[in-house]
Each structure stands twice: as C-alpha cells, then as structure tokens.
C-alpha cells in the first residue's frame, strides 16, 4: 500500500502518515514553548514504544512533558473530570492522546470541557458547544492511535461511561475532531491478537455501517470510497495482523483502514449495531459486539431497496449473488478471524440484557430514525428484539 504523506477529511486537518516524529516535534515547536500533557494508556504506551516518541519530540521542541495514564479501558465521567482539571491547572500548549479509543475519547472530552468551562454533562449530545459558540476556536487534541479500530483520531465522537446510570454517553462535537493525528503503525505491533481482532472488527463495522447508511450519502462525496477502501484493506489484512503481530505491511494497512473508518462515520454515522451494543461495555469487546450484530441488522436494512443495491456493491469483497449471500459471506469472514458465531456463546450477554437492550433502544430516537432502514420508535422494541434474538442464536445459514 502506498499511502500519501497525509490525508485530510476537511481543510485544516491532517492525518500524517509519513515522518510522524518530525511532524510531532514541529507541532510542539509551533504551539510551544510550554508544557505538553500526554494522556496515555496505563502500560500500553511503554509496550508499544509510543512514550519514547513523545519524549523525543518534546525534547526536540523544548517542551516539558507531563504524563497522565490513569485512564480505564472504558473511561468514566470522573476520570475525564480529573483530566479536565489537570488541563486547567497546567495550561499546556498542547494535549496529546497516545493510546486506543478510550484514551483518545477521554482526552478529546477533557480538552473540550477544559476550554468551555462547562460541566462535562452539558457536552453529551450533538454539537452542544459549537451550536452555542459557532465562532469559537478551540485547541484540539493531537491523536496518536496505538490500536487500529476506533478511528477516534478522525471523528467528532467521544464515548464516556456514566457509572451512575450504567450507560455509555456520547459527545458528538465538531470542535473535537483532531486537527493533527499521527499514524505510526509500528505502535500497533504490540497489540495482542484478541485486541487486534476486536479493534479490527470495530473498524470493519464502521466502514460497512457507514457504507450502508444510504441516507447520509450527501454528507461527503468521498465517504463511500473511503469505506470501500477500508473494507478492502481489512478483509485482506486483518487475518494477517491477527496471525502475526509483527507483519508490518498488515499493520500498516490496518492502521490506515481504521482511520478511513473513522473518516467514514464522521460523515455517515453508524447504525443499529452501535445503538444495540451501547450498554454492553465490560461484557463483550465493543468491536466483537458490533460485528456480531451487523448481519441481523443488515438483513433488516434490506427492507430498503437502496440498501439492497448498496449491498451488491460489496459482492466483490464478500462474494454472493444475492444480498443475503453477501451478508452470509461477511459472516464467513467473521468466522475466519475468530469472531463467535452467536451471542449465546458470549458469557457476558444474558437474555435479560438483550431484553433490556431492546426496551431501552427507544431512547435513542435519532439513531433509530437515521438507520439505513428507519425504525419507527413505537416498533423499536419488537424490531430490536428480533435482531438481538437472531444474533443470540447465530446465523441461520
């Protein structure tokens, strides 16, 4: 794969794919002098070697590096508030997130709240801050992903867990799309196979869900091309990346594919798989959950003729003569990378949870109405219940 030196979904944004060390030092120099706050995973930053990259860039730019690494795999509101307080106290010239989706999401939320001065709770929702202050210019987090899945380095999203309500809450805010992200595929080599599988499946779900979101085609002219390229790269390289973590070509392809997936869902949001699995954190890896839910959701979407046509565009990647065969082929791919066949095989996913998931789906009216085949709120429990039971039992074919 011959990637360009950087990619950009919008003017003023750069996702750097070549010479990231130089780009980072240059950015620190541009923003400095001063302190750089680095939000990182608890151990992954050392394991992957990313912390060395940060230290080197900070030193070259004459910046003081302050590190915060107490971020849970599913960051909670209190952690983000602590991070926010740190930013307010230290007044850094730059904030960097080095880690997976959790670290990047938490950093994006903390950086936003630190500058808005609002309680974090006020940011949950869609463009809460930018709708109030469209003229504001906020400093953005510099993202350096160490996994290949979330695409958070290219999105306006931040998922934060509210333990009091036992739900994951979403900030969708255009002011938190990173202006600079660095793709350093070498940092993903240390990901164990299970994490590679789960994050890779998340990236694949992003690309497919976005591609199937026919109602959002007008949001960006290139988004479907990004999705197709992302799906192609993942189907070709995910099995290799799982089998051999040090397969540099596979890691590079996955890294690029995940970022493309993020770019896709920025403009063409995810659908029912993401809605249905929103409260499953801690029970099943997010990427595995959304990938497993996708076939049943996809079959429901086929009630929209535009999705039928869109599905057949994927037949070169998931061979099949009918939409149903394409979906079955997608499921075969999941089998090939070790994704469980049925939710009943996943200990954390109980029948009670599925029933509660179907009931609570009605609360996310926007995602129901914007699904590739819209779900009437009044019927959401019945429809979601059918999807969840299908996924519980596994593919009928």
């Amino acid at each position: 794969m011959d990637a360009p030196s950087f990619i950009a979904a919008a003017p003023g944004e750069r996702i750097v794919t070549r010479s990231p060390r130089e780009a980072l030092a240059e950015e620190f120099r541009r923003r400095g002098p001063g302190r750089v706050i680095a939000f990182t995973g608890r151990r992954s930053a050392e394991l992957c070697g990313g912390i060395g990259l940060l230290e080197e860039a900070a030193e070259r730019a004459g910046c003081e590096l302050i590190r915060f690494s107490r971020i849970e795999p599913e960051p909670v509101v209190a952690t983000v508030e602590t991070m926010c307080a740190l930013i307010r106290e230290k007044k850094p010239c730059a904030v960097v997130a080095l880690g997976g989706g959790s670290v990047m999401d938490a950093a994006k939320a903390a950086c936003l709240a630190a500058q808005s001065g609002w309680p974090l709770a006020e940011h949950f929702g869609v463009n809460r801050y930018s709708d109030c202050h469209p003229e504001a210019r906020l400093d953005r987090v510099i993202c350096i992903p160490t996994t290949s899945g979330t695409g958070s380095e290219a999105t306006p999203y931040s998922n934060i867990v509210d333990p009091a309500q036992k739900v994951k809450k979403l900030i969708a805010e255009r002011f938190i799309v990173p202006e600079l992200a660095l793709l350093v595929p070498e940092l993903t080599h240390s990901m164990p196979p299970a994490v590679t599988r789960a994050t890779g499946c998340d990236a694949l779900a992003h690309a497919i869900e976005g591609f199937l979101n026919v109602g959002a085609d007008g949001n960006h002219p290139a988004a479907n091309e990004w999705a197709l390229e992302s799906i192609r790269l993942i189907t070709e390289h995910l099995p290799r990346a799982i089998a051999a973590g040090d397969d540099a070509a596979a890691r590079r392809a996955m890294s690029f594919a995940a970022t493309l997936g993020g770019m896709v869902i920025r403009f063409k949001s995810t659908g029912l798989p993401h809605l249905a699995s929103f409260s499953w954190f801690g029970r099943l890896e997010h990427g595995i959950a959304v990938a497993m839910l996708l076939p049943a959701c996809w079959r429901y979407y086929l009630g929209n003729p535009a999705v039928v046509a869109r599905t057949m565009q994927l037949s070169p990647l998931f061979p099949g003569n009918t939409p149903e065969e394409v979906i079955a082929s997608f499921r075969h791919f999941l089998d090939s990378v070790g994704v469980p066949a049925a939710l009943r095989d996943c200990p954390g996913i109980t029948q009670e949870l599925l029933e509660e998931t179907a009931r609570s789906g009605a609360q996310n009216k926007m995602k129901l109405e914007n699904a590739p085949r819209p779900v009437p709120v009044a019927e959401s429990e019945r429809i979601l219940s059918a999807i969840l039971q299908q996924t519980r039992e596994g593919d009928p074919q």
Partner: protein
Amino acid sequence: MKRLLLIAACAATFLLGGAELPTIYLAGDSTVCDYPAERAPMTGWGQALKDFCKPGVTVVNLAAGGRSTKSFQTEGRWKKLVDSLKSGDYVFIQFGHNDQKKNVPKLYAAADTDYRANLEKFIADVRAKKATPILCTPVSRRHFSSNGEFRPSLGRYPEVVRKTARAQHVALIDLTDFTEKLFRAAGPEDSQKYLTIVAPGEYPGYPKGTKDNTHYSRLGATTIAREVVRSAREQRLPVSECFVNIK
C-alpha cells in the same frame, strides 16, 4: 533602577489610557442568574453573557431566582448593587416574571404603576452613580396552544419596559420580542432545546427528567446573551466596548 522602571511603566499605562475596565452588573430573576453545575443544563442569560465579554471585564450577576422589582429591593439586593457601582459601569435590568404574581404580595408589582415606578427608581439610582442602565424586556416563557400556536404570557410587563425606556431615554434590549420570535420560528417541538426540558437520566441533576418551560438551557441562554451583544452593537451602545466580536 527598578523604581525608575516602575514609574515609567505606570506613566505609560496612564498615557495609554489604562483606566479601570467597566464592570457589568445584572439585576434580574431566575432567567438571568447564575446556576451551579448540578443544575445543568439550566443557565441564566447573565451567566452566558460572560462568555461574550472581553478579558478583564468583570460581570457581577446579582440576579436571583424568584425575585421581582419589589423583592429585589426589599431584600437589599438593589442597595448592594448600587453601593458597588462606580462611574462608567453598566447595569442590565430584567424583571417581570415574578412581578406578575398577584397572589404573592411580597413579589407583586402592578405593571403600569409599581413595576414602572420601580424601573424608574432603578434608572435614577444607576444614573446618580454615573453608571449606565440598560433595560431588557423579560424573556418569554415557552407556551404553545394545542394547535401549535405560540402564546405570550407576560401580559403588559414587556410593553411597560418599552414605554419606560422611551420615556427615560434608556437603552432597551427587547428580549421578549426576540424570544417570542425564536419560539415561533422553532415551533413547539424544536423550541424545547432552548429550555430546561430533559429526559430522565440525561443530566445528573434531573434523574427523573424535567419539563421546565420558563428556565432556559445552555443553548437558550447563550442564544439570548448573543442577542444582547448583537443588539448592543447594532444600537451602538457604549456597553459594546465590553464584548468580543461575534458574527
């Protein structure tokens, strides 16, 4: 040497007009006042106004929930405000919601008589301290009829503010008119976003949700504060010196 430099710096500040920046005071009710984080998203427009002020401008928001032109005085809030005023300061005044409450004597001020007289006293007191009063008509409640028509609920109070402003030659920002138009344009459904209308669990302060058609959300309060800034600029009011440029 150090002393010489200090004197030079002071002289430079004086010659360059380094006068003390004005303070903006707000006198009003619960639609204007500051709210703690646990009441989010409820926001008073005086609270939101701070986001539009230049660095160094102090905003003292003395507005408080449940106050009328009458109780704001009897509780000593107005005296506190006037005692703090210095020449060149600005005072935004917005009441009406609680003045309307006929069945609460300590609040009630009839529109054409007591309410008007109270506003006139406020204006005179501020001017006596060589500060500048700015009257605001009260922000509207969000009331729609069953067929979706907007229903004003502030009676004669907004008109009395307008009349008083004209008679006293005081700057007026017509927030009743602005918010009524805002609600009419948005309609019964979309206008909810401007108020503290939240679903159960959406905000920690409202575990059971709430449907408050009087108190604004962050978006509503910010939209009003933006209108205050826009209107002040459009009218070329001197208070505009305190505000940042907005589109």
